[in-house]
């Protein structure tokens, strides 16, 4: 009798373990496309309002923090307003497709900058404007191959090798460590056409909000420079918010 109870108990524990085990352990592991689809479901949004801080550490170890609020709609429309430091407060950047407009309250002028500025570093950080405003679905722009399964930072991960489907993608290849349970890229390496590692990204903290996992703190590192990297922290974020049309217009920059 005791023996039957023990067997039933063990079977129960085994079932619980089986159903709670990471999916990577399953024989029916998702395909790379399915993995990317689920990553995109977490990372890509129609609209969002967020408050973020960016801490830049230079080669000498000096840090600068920029706090900003963003209103994003779709892949290529966003308004960013700097809240701190004081010297940048009120500065706004409006991205409409490939055009970038900046507004400085001190000069009270709106300056339109060509799309090339989107490739420049934001305030000396390891992020370009493109990186900061990236909201593209990975599945749309990359072909994925499951490279391996690894444990990263105590989490089981699918390691995907991504190759750009189109010629116009800034990083022609990437390697992404995707949490096999939460479907969030915990680590990413971005490569140049030559295969040289250009950028490393790590998600150091994440949050479960509005039915999706989303990064809370991301570390960006330009691998060619010996700077100490940039920490991008999402203090608050709200998805699916109705963003009025007039907010993403040039007229809104002066308000």
């Amino acid at each position, binding site marked *: 009798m005791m023996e039957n109870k023990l067997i039933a108990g063990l079977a129960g524990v085994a079932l619980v373990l089986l159903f709670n085990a990471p999916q990577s352990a399953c024989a029916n592991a998702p395909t790379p496309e399915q993995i990317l689809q689920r990553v995109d479901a977490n990372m890509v949004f129609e609209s969002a309002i967020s408050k973020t801080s960016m801490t830049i550490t230079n*080669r000498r170890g000096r840090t600068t923090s920029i706090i900003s609020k963003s209103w994003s709609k779709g892949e290529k429309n966003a308004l960013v307003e700097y809240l701190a430091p004081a010297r940048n407060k009120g500065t706004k950047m409006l991205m409409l497709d490939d055009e970038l407009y900046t507004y400085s309250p001190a000069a009270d002028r709106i300056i339109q*900058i*060509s799309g*090339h*500025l989107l*490739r420049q*570093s934001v305030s000396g950080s390891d992020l370009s404007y493109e990186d900061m405003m990236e909201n593209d679905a990975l599945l749309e722009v990359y072909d994925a191959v499951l490279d391996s399964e690894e444990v990263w930072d105590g989490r089981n991960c699918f390691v995907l090798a991504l190759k*750009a489907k189109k*010629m*116009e*993608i*800034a*990083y*022609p290849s990437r390697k992404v460590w995707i949490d096999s349970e939460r479907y969030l890229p915990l680590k990413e390496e*971005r490569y*140049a*056409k*030559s295969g*040289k590692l*250009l950028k490393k990204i790590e998600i150091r903290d994440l949050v479960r909000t509005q039915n999706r996992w989303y990064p809370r703190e991301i570390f960006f590192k*330009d691998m*060619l*420079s*010996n*700077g100490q990297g940039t920490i991008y922290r999402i203090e608050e974020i709200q998805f699916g918010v109705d963003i009025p049309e007039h907010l993403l217009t040039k007229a809104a920059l002066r308000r």
Partner: protein
Amino acid sequence: MVLLQLALKNIMGAKLRTWLNIFVLAMSFILIVWGKAIVVGMGDQIIDAMKDVELGYGGQLWHPDYDEEDPLTINDAHGSIPDELVPGIEAGQIVPILMATGNIYPEGKVRSVLIRGISPDQQILDLPSSVLKDRKGVDYPALIGKRMARKNNLAVGDMVTVRWRDTNGVFDAREVEIVHIMNTVVYTVDVGQIWFPLETLQKMLVMPNEATIIALGKDTGIAGDLTGWTYKSLDDLLANVLELLRMKNGGGNIMYGIMFSIALLAIFDTQVLSIFRRKKEIGTLMALGLTRNKVIGLFTLEGSLHGALAFILGGILGFPFFRYFAVKGYAMPIEGDEYGFALGNVIYAKYGADLLIGTTLLLMATVVLVSYLPTRRISKMTPTNALRGR
């Protein structure tokens, strides 16, 4: 002749006063000629250096989207090199240059650079582009200038990472080898720039047979737009520099004017004093039968002789000085590019015939005018009052 002898005798009689006037005028003459010659020499050096190193002597063809004052246009400004230019390119008389923006990472520091591609076989620009040719075992040979090398602590043989984006916006990065460091006074081909063989850069950017600008040699016969390319004459290319030099020259003219005025004031003063003190003499000359105009002529001649003697003294004193600065040059405390000019740290004075004749004529004409103006009072004098010193 009598008037001339009399005028000469009179001014020599004034002794020290005359020689002081002549000396001040001669010094003004020397400084004005020298200052102008330095500016002319500087302008010619800048223009020659730019033509030699950067522009070529036959103008340039620019891609219509290229705007040298807007770096954001560079990556979009590229087009196929016209077929009709191929023979000139092969002969080294037409030089296509491709440009793109990028970054280098010397010692892990990120710096923006303008990446340029040039044919190693070109012969019209005074750039050591041949050092980029046939570098065995070096896939990405790079040429930089001494200012770029100094700022980024780079030396020949160093490897440095260069990052750029190709025509599709795709990132690429390579280790390149610095194969030569050029010494040029034209900082616009040096500061923040890195040069590669044209074909290498065309491959790097995925822009086969394309260029951003095309420099033309003297006798290419091209003096107008080609399909997809806008012709820029040397006057167009040098317009900003010439304007800047004109402005500098204008500023200099104010200084020369002040200097010259001081010397002329001395002559004017001397003339006024002479007429005041020599009223009895004027009356005597009139009583002896000299007309008023002849007396005015005598006094004007006396004043003008200051100018003539100053010119002779200026020539004697100035010649070794002028020659020294024409041969040895004027060494500036800092290099010319600190002022925004393609100039080394030595300026050679250039004395053209127009400068010497122009300055001499101007000096003589104003001396005659300044000598004449005070003498108009003589026309109102009566011989009787003049004899009594009134």
